[in-house]
């Protein structure tokens, strides 16, 4: 699966990074960077947790 970010909607709350630091991080400007967009296995679980926790629903998982 592929992690997709709705960039205009993302406000940099950073909760996704807390859920999946191995997959994404906020850069120095507070912009979210998806380091690992294509995920499966254990990474898919972490990605699902990140998608779930985003308070403004800016992340989703799509078929790769």
């Amino acid at each position: 699966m592929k992690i997709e970010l709705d960039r205009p909607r993302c406000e940099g709350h950073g909760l996704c990074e807390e859920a999946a630091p191995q997959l994404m991080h906020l850069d120095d400007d507070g912009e979210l960077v998806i380091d690992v967009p294509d995920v499966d296995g254990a990474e898919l679980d972490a990605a699902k947790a990140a998608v779930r926790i985003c308070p403004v629903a800016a992340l989703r998982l799509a078929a790769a």
Partner: protein
Amino acid sequence: MTAPIQSDIDIWADDILVDPYPTYAELREQAAAVHLPKNDLYVLTRYDAIRDALGDPESFSSASIGFNPMVNGALQGTSLASDPPVHTQLRAVLSQNLTPRALRGLKVVIDEKADKLVAELADSGSFEAIDSLARAFPIEIVADLIGFQGHVKDNMLRWGQAAMQVLGPLNQRTQESFPIAGELYGWCSSVTAEDLAPGSIGRGIFDAEARGEIPEGSAGHIIHQYLGAGVDTTIASIGNIVALFGRHAEQFDLVRANPELVPAAFAEVLRYWAPVHIWGRKATRDVEIDGVTIPAGAQVGILFGAGNRDPRHYENPDTFDVTRNPVDHLSFGYGPHGCAGQGLAKLEAHAVIEALARRVQTLTIGDEVREPSNITRSIEKLQVEKVVAV
């Protein structure tokens, strides 16, 4: 079509507003969506139903976030009351100044102010926590942020309370608050850049309007929404922090011993006592939720506090536990309208909790005094009878 599950309670009855949790539990056990004929309303009671509805603006429109036609009419054209795609644009303008990245520079000042205020209170031996902390602190922070000076600052509490109160049904509380909410609206419609302190975010919003970056006339509306949505709610949450730490000394001790628990402690305060009792949506089509059909056009009421205590989602939901870290609580809403000010609310509340943990050893509190109010559930008076400073 399935038969609606009903309850003959009045969700705005005084005793329910003051202590809604027994009613939330009853309704939640009845169904995920319960029809309240007395209020001409369907309330959502369970965690999943609430989150799904908040994430589905196509089925649950924000056209009626309030519970009377006058207020919904007045809110037309605001971010709060609009649906995608219009909402997406309005929200971008509104949240620009509130994102964690925009607020980054404020953290140091907010932390310092909280520390100074809490240190004074801790040294005073006893204090009334609502006026001197829960109200004083967010009013000062938001006033500085927007750049309010003079009489406007003195009106922030009344205006902020009234802006929430008028979202209720047309009961006496709503009627009495309309003129006060009108004062706020009137002021926001006539405010100019010069009324706001140079260098403030409020002034910056006007500058953006002058440069044509945001639509003409929108600056006043943005400030209106910051005041309407951001004052009364934050006040409630800070009062709740003091009351819950006072009631649960062992939980406060945990935070004192482990300051890294501060964000988790605030999330748990928000989960345990939701600052917003009920918030509206309109069903745009027949929606079936766990076997109950909400008919197209029906007014819906979201009970954030009921979802936050749903045992289907949280273990021992009625226990206040600062180690739980319920980051997915519903008190800030969720999805497209999820609270635009949550970064600021967290900055303020984390600063207060950190200061309490640093400056206070023990708190002995009296009973909290509450007054019924339509939308915000907050404490009116809370005497800290004895505070022992570190």
